């Protein structure tokens, strides 16, 4: 399968990848976003090495310690501790792992299912298409967070189910996108040529058409990743996501309300972590869109 795609990439003079990188690099915000995302990914991967403490270990003698620049802080707990004495920095680092894991899992499953369902709808048409599109319309008719809550109510709150709920909620966008771009590609000459020369349906779907639908899909995946992280954090905040003591950023915010006035940092840090992560991914996503979709490219 890769043989003819690689030939195609090397045939074009600057190479699409390099052309893409050139276009992407023009957007300073996108490069910063990418750098931050890489940093967070590294923190998530090496959390167990980087984190000074165990994220769920409760240091009973050191509860509600402030971060290092405030009076009464303890340098062993740089960003302070929460209500039960767990190290904030360590929880944030492991939290990156949880949030990114949720986001990437949702994105991967959505991509695979979106491609499968979207291509099936586009290639088979008729009843298959109608059924797939109708079901997707139905999912879209129910507001996303409400649907996620409904699903969680049925299957119960935990990390895996958060991934399932957030995936179902976001899936229609992927399916419709793949279907729409596949339908556009199907009318083009190169597809007709491939059909005439006797390429079989499976190969036509995966090798001929799919690579040409990837650009908008990649953009959608980037934006879908940040949406998924936000939605999962929202569920966590409502107590319907990852369950304690999992260091999930949304869940970490859930019971900080009573401490808000007296110990504001307990509430501040997880939120900042979510904001920075989502913002960085969105910056990167904007850059991806500008670089991959010349129609929207800013001049």
């Amino acid at each position: 399968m890769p043989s003819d795609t690689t030939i195609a990439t090397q045939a074009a003079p600057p190479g699409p990848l390099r052309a893409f990188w050139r276009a992407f690099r023009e957007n300073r915000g996108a490069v910063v976003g990418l750098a931050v995302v890489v940093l967070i990914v590294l923190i998530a991967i090496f959390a167990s090495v980087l984190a000074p403490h165990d994220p769920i270990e409760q240091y009973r003698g050191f509860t509600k310690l402030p971060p290092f620049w405030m009076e009464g802080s303890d340098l062993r707990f740089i960003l302070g501790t929460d209500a039960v004495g767990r190290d904030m920095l360590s929880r944030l680092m492991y939290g990156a792992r949880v949030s990114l894991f949720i986001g990437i899992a949702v994105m991967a499953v959505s991509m695979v299912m979106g491609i499968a369902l979207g291509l099936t709808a586009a290639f088979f048409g008729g009843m298959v298409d109608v059924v797939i599109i109708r079901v997707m319309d139905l999912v879209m008719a129910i507001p996303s967070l409400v649907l996620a809550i409904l699903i969680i109510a049925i299957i119960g709150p935990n990390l895996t189910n958060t991934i399932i709920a957030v995936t179902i909620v976001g899936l229609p966008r992927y399916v419709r996108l793949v279907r729409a771009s596949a339908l556009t590609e199907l009318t083009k000459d190169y597809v007709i040529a491939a059909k005439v020369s006797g390429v079989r349906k499976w190969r036509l779907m995966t090798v001929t058409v799919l690579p040409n639908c990837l650009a908008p899909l990649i953009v959608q995946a980037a934006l879908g990743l940040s949406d998924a992280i936000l939605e999962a954090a929202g569920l966590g905040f409502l107590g319907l996501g990852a369950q304690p003591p999992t260091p999930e950023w949304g869940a970490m915010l859930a019971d900080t309300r009573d401490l808000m006035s007296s110990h504001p940092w307990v509430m501040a840090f997880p939120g900042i972590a979510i904001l920075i992560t989502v913002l960085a991914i969105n910056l990167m996503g904007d850059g991806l869109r500008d670089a991959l979709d010349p129609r929207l490219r800013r001049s």
Partner: protein
Amino acid sequence: MFRFLLKRLLLTLPTFFALMFVTFIMIRLVPGDPIEVRRGERGISPERLEELRREMGLDQPVWKQFGDYVWGILHGDFGTSIISKTPILHEFATLFPATLELTISAMIFAVVLGIPAGVIAASRRGGVYDQSLMGLALTGYSMPIFWWGLILILVMSNTLGLTPVSGRVDLIKFYYEPVTGFMLIDSLLSGQKGAFWDAVHHLILPTIVLGTVPLAVIARMTRSSMLEVLEEDYVRTARAKGLSTYRIIGVHALRNALIPVVTVIGLQTGGLLAGAVLTETIFSWPGVGKWLVESIGRRDYPALQGGILLISAMVIFVNLIVDLLYGLINPRIRHAK
């Protein structure tokens, strides 16, 4: 126009029917029999169990149960809350105005700030204003709104003491019977001094929190739509005629740039009705979003079932209206196959 309306209306029917089917199935998938949920810890005799099953129609075949469910909904019977024992429709109707008031207020906030921000950014493309406004918009779009709400409470209410923390009006100082369900209107009607301003104060923070994401989306959309329109020939013609920049942007370009923005506003409103879940939870705003979340905690599945059906119906309704408005503004949509 009438045919377009009828067609759009007919298209929503299957969606609504499917929605009824989904919510019906859902209550059957929830772990635990509805009766088990109801009987709680103590347990009941087998005779009473049989009686309850008959009462709730659970001894009937499933297809008949679904028929009865649909029949009930068509007659306005969305079931009865297990906890409060009141009809779901009644509960929903009492809470919905609070959500609607918050949604409308948030939308006004987003539109009033978002469109000018987008226009300014587009007309100063690449400049400092453009970059800072769009930076802010992207930040708003990336904001976890439940955290944003907490931060605002911390700063505005707890530290500066400018706004109240929760609820719709100070119930100790003011009491009046709800007339419309909209606190701003009811407080005025009550004639009590200061009630209106109190209600406004309560509305400020939830409005900002709920309005932040649509504000960002509208600003971004307005900007890109304006940029597209500003390259059109008629804008160049207007420039060539010597019209002032203000007039070109404000009249010629903006009017055409607003068409996609209207769609976004509509779509966002539908989303807000439901997105109020988080905002209402943070501010103890007594609307349908908070009620839904609490229903989960109380295992009040009929309330959850009816509530989700009703909220989704509202969202479908809003989207329908947006489609109709869109057809009204843009004849090309109306006449498309």
